[in-house]
């Protein structure tokens, strides 16, 4: 990862002292990460996106990044310093960076900002997010087919729309193929805490779940499932954010992969040729931002084929994971027969669909 040589660093230091006023035609792109680049999940995939940008544009681009930046005042300072150092485009890759991004963007009208998973935009601030729920539908289909205890454990992070959407999408898909299925949801209140995630996985398995879905970023639930799988009962899991293929073919049978590379390459390119404009995008399987990791051989042929069919149908726009009739948990009608959910409702989703038990914590 640390590619620069001593000489290179010295050269950078030289550039640094004069860089402020030097005319260089390189496009400088900054990345602000919420976790360490080696987290194996969320930040790791953004880092892959950055490396893809470097690969694509080579010498035309200079990228800088800062890892483990706390959300709040510190983020604002890091972004400001990046802007001061001459960045042309800055990707801020966590929801909590939204207000800091808006504040800094106001002070640097000539610098472009791209904020991930938020909802605010400005002249020089775009936002982008991925329709992870599309992947959840594929996951739910496999889970519903493969569970033998009919109990599916779900490690949720925070009760925010993105997470609730994922639970609903997975549940609807699982229920469709297996009406007996039950979801048991544990709220971990963290995005990344291997110890907590492992505990959650163990608790769910003890309660009879033989499929573990996770909306947290570490591989700890995978390890816990592998450990619990020895005596006749097989627990299956899905990779989250990253492929987590080191746990394939079992317990990890597939995954949802965040693939930011195409988007980052496109947007850096837009800055280079001066066509960058603020926008708000929500890309899914079709655009390649959400990837379905390889479905392992542990999954029966027909289930695998069915899962791929769903993936392709969603990509082609022939299928929407939220298609009526769907009722809310309280039994009231949400979507009529054949109606599909609008993005506004999905973005603010704060309710379970009918059939899920328990309450969303408040």
């Amino acid at each position, binding site marked *: 990862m640390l590619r620069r040589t001593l000489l290179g660093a010295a050269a950078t230091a030289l550039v640094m002292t004069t860089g402020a006023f030097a005319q260089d035609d390189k496009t400088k792109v900054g990345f602000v990460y919420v976790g360490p680049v080696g987290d194996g999940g969320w930040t790791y995939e953004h880092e892959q996106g950055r490396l893809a940008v470097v690969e694509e544009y080579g010498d035309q681009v200079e990228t800088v990044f800062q890892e483990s930046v706390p959300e*709040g005042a*510190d983020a604002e300072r890091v972004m400001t310093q990046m802007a001061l150092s001459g960045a042309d485009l800055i990707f801020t890759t966590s929801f909590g960076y939204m207000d800091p991004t808006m504040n800094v963007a106001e002070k640097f009208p000539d610098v472009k900002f791209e904020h991930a998973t938020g909802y605010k935009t400005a002249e020089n601030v775009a936002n982008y997010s991925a329709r992870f729920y599309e992947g959840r539908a594929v996951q739910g289909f496999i889970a519903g087919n493969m569970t033998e205890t009919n109990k599916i454990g779900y490690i949720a992070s925070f009760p925010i729309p993105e997470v609730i959407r994922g639970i609903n999408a997975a549940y609807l898909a699982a229920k469709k193929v297996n009406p007996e299925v039950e979801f048991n949801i544990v709220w971990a209140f963290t995005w990344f805490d291997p110890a907590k995630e492992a505990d959650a996985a163990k608790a769910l398995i003890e309660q009879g779940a033989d499929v573990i879905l996770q909306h947290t970023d570490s591989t700890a639930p995978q390890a816990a499932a592998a450990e619990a799988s020895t005596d006749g009962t097989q627990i299956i899991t899905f990779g989250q954010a990253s492929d987590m293929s080191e746990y394939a073919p079992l317990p990890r049978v597939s995954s949802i992969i965040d693939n930011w590379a195409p988007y980052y390459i496109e947007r850096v390119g837009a800055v280079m040729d001066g066509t960058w404009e603020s926008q708000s995008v929500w890309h899914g399987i079709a655009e390649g931002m959400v990837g379905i990791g390889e479905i392992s051989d542990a999954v029966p042929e027909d289930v695998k084929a069915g899962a791929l069919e769903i993936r392709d149908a969603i990509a082609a726009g022939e299928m929407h994971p939220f298609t009526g009739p769907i009722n809310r948990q309280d039994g009231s009608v949400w979507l009529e027969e054949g109606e599909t959910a609008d993005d506004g409702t999905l973005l603010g989703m704060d309710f379970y669909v009918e059939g899920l038990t328990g309450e969303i914590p408040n």
Partner: protein
Amino acid sequence: MISLEKRPTPSRVWTYATPFLAVALTVIAGGLMFAALGKDPVAAIRTIFYDPLFDPQFAAYSRPQLLVKAGPLILIATGLALGFRAGVWNIGAEGQYIIGALTGAAVGLALYPADTRMIFPLMVIVGALGGWAWAMIPAILKTRFNTNEILVSLLLVYVAENLLASMAVGRLRNPEGGGFPGSRNLSQWDSAANPELIANTGMHWGVVAAFIAVIFAYILLNRHLTGFHIRLAGQAPRAARFAGVEPTRLVVLCLGISGALAGLAGIFEVTGPAGQISIDFNVGYGFTAIIVAFLGRLHPIGIALAGLLMALTYIGGELASFMLGIPAAAIQAFQGMLLFFLLAVDVLTNYRVRLGRREASA
């Protein structure tokens, strides 16, 4: 052969010289670490210590940021130092900081959108009370049941963190935030904002409070009977008892002051630089302040300087991190070295180093 000989009284010269020696040793060891990572050590050290203060590109922004970052550190560390001097170990300032921010913000948000500048002082008072009350838990448990205040105060940090997460997605969530976690932005609501008092100085009420606290602590320790009792209780507990020092009163007083100051730091931060209650609002000021307190020799003036130095390593560390591609973990290790060397060279204050063979009669 090197041998150590205990000094009859701690060396005055070394008391003041050791912090500087520790910084020098940190620079050397840190430089070696950066070199081992393939970075130019001189450029790295320069970026950390010199650029935030004097580099034309960054200094205008970084210098005021020093105060923003140092303010809460100094405020919290000043309170902690009083306790540490008396042998009362409040390790949970991080929790008191969170609760101060939560209670203060809750009072403010309950009055939203009232338009009166009286709300801000009210929030500050409630914030201080919140921190104080949270610190009273270990204080009362210690004085009543003789529990260990180190453990209790530390564990209460985790309780506070979970309360924070629950409030950010629940009671205090911004009703206009589309279901996303986080409260309304307090710094953008005039009645509650803690703005920069003089433009581009970084000076906000929290920084003012920090300097007032330093002055008060100085007077308390040097000119006041209570201060004498605090020092006495720490240096000679038995003598203190004979002198009529009531340990119970001292525990309550020290934990109370440090809790209230931590709470103040929290409310000033949430109404100013941070702006809102979010899941990850706390970024470790309460723990870093422990380092600052010791780096400053538990002396108020020393703490003010130590806070500024620590802030410099943060801001410079960030610069070094993205300008030179130094991993965030290496910057943290660098900060850790500072405390390590400080404690290590402490030996010089209390012991005389003798070179050569020890004489038999000595």
